């Protein structure tokens, strides 16, 4: 076996190693053969002085412990430049997803604020109306009836606002916390795909 044949066989045997490792190894063996040839050996003698290829590849896989390309894992067939081009080209679509999510969260937050503010307003109205009742009753009966109606209306709505705020706030906080992570993970998945 001459040097070229040996190197071709070596390349075949180590094809499951990572590319950088393959280059290093081929250079190493090329150098080893060149050194032997330089010393006066023929190509065949130099190749014969090395380990057999079976022993060599077994030794290397055992020693390097570089995992072969995982079986079942889809090889990445899209070149990096093309992948980035596609990411930029489709950016109007995928960029809209976090924007829409952000707007939805904003609306949700606004609704919660409204619920809280309205709830507090109804509570204040109910308390104030209750304490104003005697003086309004003595001043004007019609105004007193309107005031009683307002107080009852406020007492009726304040708890609903409060319960609504209390029930939706944890879900809102969770969404706010997890949304950036989710967007980031989707981005990473897309880049790694």
């Amino acid at each position, binding site marked *: 076996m001459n040097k070229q044949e040996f190197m071709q066989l070596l390349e075949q045997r180590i094809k499951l190693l990572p590319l950088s490792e393959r280059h*290093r190894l081929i250079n190493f063996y090329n*150098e*080893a053969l*060149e*050194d032997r040839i330089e010393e006066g050996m023929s190509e065949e003698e130099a190749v014969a002085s090395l*380990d057999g290829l079976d022993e*060599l590849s077994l*030794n290397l896989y055992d020693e*390097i412990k570089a995992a072969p390309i995982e079986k079942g894992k889809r090889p990445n067939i899209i070149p990096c430049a093309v992948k980035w081009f596609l990411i930029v080209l489709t950016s109007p679509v995928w960029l809209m997803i976090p924007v829409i999510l952000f707007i939805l969260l904003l609306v949700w937050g606004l609704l919660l604020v409204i619920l809280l503010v309205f709830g507090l307003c109804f509570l204040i109205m109910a308390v104030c109306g209750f304490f104003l009742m005697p003086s309004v009753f003595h001043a004007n009966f019609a105004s007193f009836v309107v005031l009683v109606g307002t107080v009852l209306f406020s007492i009726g709505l304040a708890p609903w606002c409060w319960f609504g705020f209390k029930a939706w706030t944890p879900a809102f906080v969770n969404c706010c916390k997890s949304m950036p992570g989710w967007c980031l993970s989707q981005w990473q998945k897309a880049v790694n795909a």
Partner: protein
Amino acid sequence: MDIQLKKGLIEICVLASLKKNDSYGYQIIKDLSVCVAISESTLYPILRRLESSECLKVYTMEHNGRLRKYYHLTVKGRERIDEFLEDWDQIMNIYEYIKGGNENE
């Protein structure tokens, strides 16, 4: 000899072969042949491991119109040899213990 023990000893031998001068793969094999016969398939992973553990530094130099990789022993590599020599007494004690055990049988 036990494979792991042999690997460990060869590692130290490789480091020791670089103590005086920088060297290259084939020369290291020839230098070590006086005490242990190793091949490229044994040497390559050892050099790789020593390089990644920063016991060796690699540089490339031109030789007869081609590039050749040279290995240089680092301070960490020297410390590794010293550690091995310091541990030698302990190894000898183990050896004596094992030998004594065999003799008693």
